[in-house]
C-alpha cells in the first residue's frame, strides 16, 4: 500500500473508534464536551505518532520475545512526557482528563498499531499510519464530544448553539449517554459508509 493510503485508511475505513471499536475506555469517559474529546484525541495521537515512529525505527533491534515489554516502555515514556507537558502548559485540560492521560499507556489503539503495524513496517509508512489513525481517533472523539455536548448542554466548544429555550438531555452528559451517543454515531457511520461504498 502507498504511504497516502496508509494515512487515509485510518480516518474512515479503519477508524479506530467507529470501525475497529478500539480504545473505548477514554472514548466513553472523556467525551462529555467537544474540547475534552479534542484534547484527549490530540494527546493520544501525539503518543501514537511518537510510539509508531520509535517502534518502527527500532523494529529490527527488538527481539520478538520481549517486544511487548519494549513497546510498553516506549509508550509509557511518551505518555509520561505528554502528561508532564499537559500539567505544565495546559493545566485546565490536564485536570479534566485526569487519570485518562496516564491510562493512554494501555490504550489498545496505540499498542495495537505498535504490534500490528509499526513493528513490521518501514518508518515512513508507520508515521503515516500513526498520523492517520491518530487523526481518525481525535476526529471521532471530537465528534462524539460535540454530539454529547450539543444534546446534553446545547453548546459545542462552549458556544451556545441551540439557544436558551432548549431543554438539554442531561443524560448525554452522563456515562450512559456516552454509550447511547456512540451507538447512534456508529450506526450512522456504518450506514453512510455502506451507502457510499467506503468499505
Amino acid at each position, binding site marked *: 500500500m502507498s504511504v497516502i493510503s496508509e494515512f487515509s485508511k485510518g480516518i474512515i475505513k479503519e477508524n479506530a473508534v467507529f470501525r475497529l471499536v478500539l480504545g473505548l475506555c477514554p472514548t466513553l469517559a472523556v467525551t462529555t464536551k467537544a474540547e475534552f474529546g479534542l484534547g484527549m484525541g490530540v494527546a493520544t495521537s501525539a503518543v501514537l505518532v511518537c510510539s509508531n515512529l520509535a517502534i518502527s525505527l527500532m523494529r529490527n*533491534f*527488538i*527481539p520478538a*520475545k*520481549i517486544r511487548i*515489554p*519494549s513497546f510498553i*516502555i*516506549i509508550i*509509557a*515514556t511518551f505518555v*509520561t*512526557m505528554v502528561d*508532564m*507537558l499537559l*500539567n*505544565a*502548559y495546559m*493545566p485546565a485540560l490536564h485536570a479534566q482528563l485526569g487519570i485518562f492521560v496516564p491510562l493512554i499507556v494501555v490504550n489498545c489503539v496505540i499498542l495495537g498499531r505498535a504490534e500490528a503495524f509499526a513493528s513490521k513496517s518501514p518508518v515512513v509508512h508507520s508515521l503515516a499510519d500513526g498520523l492517520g489513525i491518530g487523526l481518525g481517533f481525535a476526529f471521532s472523539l471530537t465528534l462524539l464530544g460535540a454530539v454529547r455536548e450539543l444534546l446534553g448542554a446545547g453548546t459545542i466548544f462552549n458556544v451556545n448553539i441551540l439557544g436558551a429555550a432548549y431543554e438539554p438531555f442531561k443524560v448525554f452528559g452522563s456515562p450512559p449517554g456516552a454509550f447511547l451517543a456512540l451507538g447512534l454515531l456508529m450506526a450512522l457511520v456504518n450506514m453512510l459508509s455502506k451507502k457510499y461504498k467506503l468499505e
Partner: protein
Amino acid sequence: MKDMIRMGVILMIFCVVAAAALAYTNQVTSIVIAERLHQEKVAQLAELFPTLTNFEERTVDGRSATVAFDAENKFVGVLAEGQTEGYGGPISFNLGINAAGEIVGLTVVAQTETPGLGDKIKEPWFTEQFLGKKAGDTFTVDAISGATVSVKAMETGVEREYNEIWQRFSDGGAAGGAGNAAPAFSLEGVADGTYPGTAKGFKGDITLEVIVAGGKITAINVTAQQETADRWADAEKVIGEIIAKQTVQVDAVSGATISSDAIIKAVQNALAQ
C-alpha cells in the same frame, strides 16, 4: 542463557533511554508546574486572607503550616491540616486561622464517614458553623441526626487542632521559620559596608552580597545560585528594582516567583543582620 542476557541488556538500554528522556522532561516542566501550584496556593490563600501577598511553609514543634504575610511582611494568617478520628476512620481537614485567632476557613479534604449521614460534615453549611470561633469559645455546633459521632468528632477535633496550631503559629511561627524568616526591613541604621545574605531558592540556596554606601543600596552581587538558567535571567530583574526603589517591597517576577522571592528574602536577611 546467552539469549536471556542479550534480552535483559536490550530492555535495560530501553529503560536507561526512557529514564533520561523523562528526567529531561521533568526538569523542564517541574519548574512551570511548581510555579503554577505556587500561584494557585496564593489564590487559595487570598480567599481566606485578603491582604496576603506572600506565604511560606513553616514547621513548629513538628507541625507544618502555611503562613501568610501581607505586603509589609506582617503575619495575616495560617493554614494548616488537622485530623480527627471519625466514625468511619480518620477525617482530615484544612483549618485557616487569621491573625486575630479566628477560624476563617474549614474544609474537609478526606473522610470515610457513612454516605448520606456522617459525610454531611464535609458540606459547607456544616463547616461554616465553625467560622469566627476563636480561643476560649465553645466549639459546639448543630448536631446532625444519625451522625452524632461524626459531629462530635469534628467538634473535638477542630477544637484540639485549633489550639495546637494557634499555640505554635499565633506569632506567625517565627520560632520555627528562622532559616527562611523574613525579618522587618529598614535601611535606617544600616552602616556602610558589604552584607552577605542567603535564602532558599527553587533548587537550592541563593547567596548574595548587598553593598550599602551612604545609607543606600548601591549594588547586589549574587555569589552563588543553582537556579534554572532561563528562570534566573528573569528573576534577576528584581535586583535592579530593589536598587531603584531602595526597598525590598517589590513585586516578584511573574514566571519566576520562587527565585525572585528568594532574592528579595536574601536581601532582607542580609540587611537584618
